[in-house]
């Protein structure tokens, strides 16, 4: 038996469907209101796709999935703290990132009102973003708020810098 993980580890995931909506474009044509609600729900616990995953579901991270800055700012404190912790890990990853983040922390002082908190994770960018490369890393500049793409689990997300 080559498995080393705990016996409660997930079982029987044949295909991961998880958050199909993670890649939804901001101008998604169908039922955006509905999609926003689905985002919110799937960020709470997901429907498990494995037998043992049912038991493990509570360990899944909360995805702060909103499309408007105001909503993102209103995201739960716990989620924000988790994301900040994740961001802290990223920050320590490379010196490049540290300097880029420092720049953005300076910029944060002039952050637009209602902008999402640094470290928040969204599944779709607001409208009108422009790519900008800093220190070899591509960011999306969305009205002065910078986002960086990443995979969080199977989902393409954008981390507010």
């Amino acid at each position, binding site marked *: *038996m*080559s*498995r*080393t*993980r705990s*016996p*409660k*580890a*997930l*079982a*029987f*995931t*044949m*295909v*991961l*469907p*998880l958050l*199909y*909506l*993670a*890649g*939804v474009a901001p101008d*998604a044509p169908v039922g955006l209101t*509905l999609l926003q*609600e*689905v985002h*919110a*729900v*799937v960020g709470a*616990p*997901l*429907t*498990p*796709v*494995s*037998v*043992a995953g*049912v*038991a493990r*579901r509570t360990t*899944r*991270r909360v995805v702060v999935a909103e499309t408007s800055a105001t909503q993102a700012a209103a995201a739960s404190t716990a989620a924000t703290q988790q994301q900040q912790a*994740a961001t802290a*890990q*990223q920050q320590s*990853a490379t010196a490049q990132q540290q300097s880029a983040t420092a720049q953005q922390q300076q910029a944060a002082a002039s952050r637009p009102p209602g902008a999402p908190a640094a470290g928040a994770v969204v599944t779709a960018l607001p409208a009108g973003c422009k790519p900008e490369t800093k220190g070899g890393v*591509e960011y999306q500049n969305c009205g002065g708020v910078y986002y*960086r*793409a*990443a*995979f*969080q*689990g*199977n989902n*393409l*997300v954008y*981390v507010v810098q």
Partner: protein
Amino acid sequence: METTPRDRLTAALSRCCVIAALATLSVAAQAQSTGVAPEAMQMLKASTDFLASQQRFTADTRVTLEIVLKSGQKIEFNSTGHQFVQRPNKLRSERSGDLVEQVFVYDGKSLTLYQPQDKVYAQVAAPGTLEEMLDLAREKYDVVAPFGDLIFKNAYDILMDGVTEGLVVGKAVIEGAVCNHLAFRAPDVDWQIWIQEGAQPLPRRVVITTLDLPNAPQFAVTVTRWNLEPSFDAQTFTFTRQADMKRIELLPR
């Protein structure tokens, strides 16, 4: 104590309900005795052992996933997938469906997750076997490999962990194949599996019902086609970065 007509009506209705409930329970009890039927265990074990013995295979899959909205309304999402497996250390899994296309490639050294339409990919170093890689992906990165756990050689142990009841429901035809339909219960989860009859006892369908979520949402996967003699080429398990693809981070969980 004096009873009003309303009280008497309520009492009568209650008796009715009790009788109906008992009748239902009785029927259910006949169909579903407590404990795990040995035949159910044997059929499941035969299937997982058979798949574990396959060194290379592909499976085409169709998936439905229910999401429960805050209002209680259920919404269903659909996708299709293609899984390519070569033991002990190669995997490719593609899925496409509602709004996203994603590919997962493991070449024995690294695993790559990418979305061709979004032109992004993430790549991390990976251990040398499928099982270890899937553990790492799940536990460190929260990435669930399509087709993942069925690939484990001890899939039977994983599935049966915590199971309290199991039975053989009967025969059914899935995608044209005659199958044995099994149903199991474990804390907070009911699950069913349809296993092809005959010399190749392959799983053809799985349904997972989550009992401790509102409205008990379901995840279902059907294998529309198995191929136990696939031909793979050099590209099957290799990620080739296209020029306009950008590398992004895979966040640790």
